[in-house]
C-alpha cells in the first residue's frame, strides 16, 4: 500500500462528495424552512403533508431514501413527459436534500417553540405579521437555540454522503473501492482507516465552523434562561 498515491486519488473524488453535500445543505435548508413554516402555522391539509414528509425523512433509512429517489425520479420525470436526463449524482442530490430537509425541520421546529412564550405573545399583540415576527424577534433567538442541532445535522449529512456509493455515484467511498480492488483487496482495513480519517477531518472542519457561529450568536442568548434541551442523536 502506498499512501502517497492513494490519498491524492481519494481526494480527487472529494469535489463530488462536497458538491452533493452543499446542494443537499442548501436545498435541504429551504425545504426545512418551508416544512417548518407549515408545521408551526397549522394550515389544514398542507401541515399534515409536511408532518408526513418529516416522518418519512426521519424514520426511513437514508440508503432506502436514496434508492427510492434513484428509482422513483425517472418515473416522476416520465409522468411529465420529459426525457430521462437523471444520473446517479442527481438522484443522490435529490435524495439527500429530502433527507436533510426533514431532519433539519425537526431541529428548527423545537427551536422555534423553545423561544419564550411571552416573546411570541408580545410580537402578536404589537401586530407583527408572521414574517416580521420570525425575522425580527423569534428568528434571532431561535438561531442561538438551533445552532448546536444544526451542527449535528451537518455532521450526519457528511456521514450520509458516504452512502451515495450504493446508487452508483463516484464519491470518495466508491473511489476507495476502486483503489482496493486494484490492489487485489489486500489492504482493505488500511484503506478504510484512511477513509475514517478523511471523514473525521471533514466533520471536524464543519464542527469548527458551526462552533464559530455559535460563539458569535451567543449575544442573542436569553438572559438567565435554562439552556434548551438538545437531543444529540445519530441519523442513518
Amino acid at each position: 500500500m502506498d499512501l502517497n498515491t492513494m490519498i491524492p486519488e481519494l481526494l480527487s473524488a472529494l469535489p463530488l462528495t462536497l458538491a452533493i453535500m452543499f446542494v443537499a445543505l442548501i436545498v435541504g435548508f429551504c425545504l426545512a424552512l418551508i416544512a417548518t413554516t407549515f408545521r408551526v402555522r397549522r394550515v389544514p391539509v398542507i401541515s399534515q403533508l409536511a408532518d408526513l414528509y418529516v416522518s418519512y425523512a426521519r424514520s426511513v433509512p437514508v440508503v432506502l431514501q436514496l434508492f427510492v429517489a434513484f428509482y422513483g425520479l425517472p418515473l416522476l420525470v416520465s409522468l411529465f413527459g420529459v426525457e430521462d436526463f437523471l444520473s446517479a449524482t442527481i438522484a443522490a442530490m435529490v435524495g439527500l436534500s429530502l433527507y436533510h430537509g426533514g431532519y433539519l425541520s425537526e431541529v428548527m421546529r423545537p427551536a422555534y417553540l423553545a423561544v419564550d412564550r411571552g416573546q411570541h405573545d408580545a410580537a402578536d399583540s404589537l401586530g407583527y405579521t408572521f414574517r416580521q415576527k420570525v425575522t425580527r424577534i423569534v428568528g434571532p433567538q431561535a438561531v442561538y437555540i438551533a445552532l448546536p442541532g444544526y451542527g449535528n445535522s451537518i455532521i450526519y449529512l457528511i456521514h450520509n454522503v458516504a452512502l451515495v456509493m450504493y446508487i452508483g455515484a463516484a464519491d470518495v467511498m466508491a473511489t476507495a473501492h476502486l483503489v482496493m480492488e486494484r490492489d487485489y483487496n489486500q489492504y482493505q482495513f488500511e484503506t478504510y482507516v484512511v477513509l475514517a480519517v478523511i471523514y473525521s477531518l471533514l466533520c471536524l472542519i464543519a464542527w469548527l465552523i458551526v462552533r464559530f457561529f455559535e460563539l458569535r450568536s451567543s449575544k442573542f442568548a436569553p438572559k438567565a434562561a435554562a439552556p434548551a434541551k438538545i437531543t444529540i442523536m445519530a441519523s442513518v
Partner: protein
Amino acid sequence: MFDIDVLLPDLWSILGAVPVTLAMALTIFVFATIIGSLFALIEHRRVPVLRELVVAYKVAFKGVPMVVVIFLAYYGLPPALQFLASLVGVKFNAHATPNWVILIVALTACVAAFQAEIVKGALNSFDTGQADAAHSLGYKSSQLFRRILLPQVIVAAIPDLANSFMVIMKALSLGFAIEVVDIFAQAQLTAALNFYYLEAFVIAVVIYMVIAYIVTHIADRTERALRVRT
C-alpha cells in the same frame, strides 16, 4: 411503470425479514445501553483516566460514518479475534465468525457512544437535592440508586431511548453491504427476483414508517404511565 399487482406478494416477502430485524435491533439496543450507561457513570463520577478515554471514544465514533465502522469491523475484527485467541492459546477459527455477529458488534460500538450521551443527559436532569435528602435520611448509595435515582432517570430517558431504537433499526439497513439480511436487504432481494425495484422499496418505506409510528406510540404511553404526577 408502477405495477400495483406485485405489491401484495412483495409485502409478504419483505414482512418475513421484520422479526429478524427487530431481534437484532433489540440485541444491539440492550448491549449498547449497558455499555453507554457504564460510560455515562464513568463521566458522572469523574473517574480520572477512564473519563478521558470515554471522551476520546465518543469523539472518534461521532466523526466516522457507520458504514466505515461496519467495514472496519468486517475486515478488522476476525484477524484481531484470531490474534487474541492465539495469544491465549485457544484453537478457534475467528474467520468463521458469522456476519451478523460482526454487524451487531460494530453497531453496538457506534450506538454506545450515543447512548452514553443520552444517559448522561438523564443523569444530569436528576435533582441533587433529592440525593442530599436521601443521604440525610440515612439511605445507602445502593438504596439511593435503586429507589430514587433509577426510576426517575429511566422515565426521563424514555423518549430518547425510543429514538435511539429507531436509529438502530435504520442502521441495520447498512448491513446489506456485509450480507446481513434485514428489511431493506430483503426488499432488494425481492426486487432482484422480479425487477420491480420501486414497488419493493415503497413497501419497505411503509414498513419502516409503521414500525417508527408503533415505537413512538409505545414510548409515549409508557412515559405517560410512569411519569410521577406533580
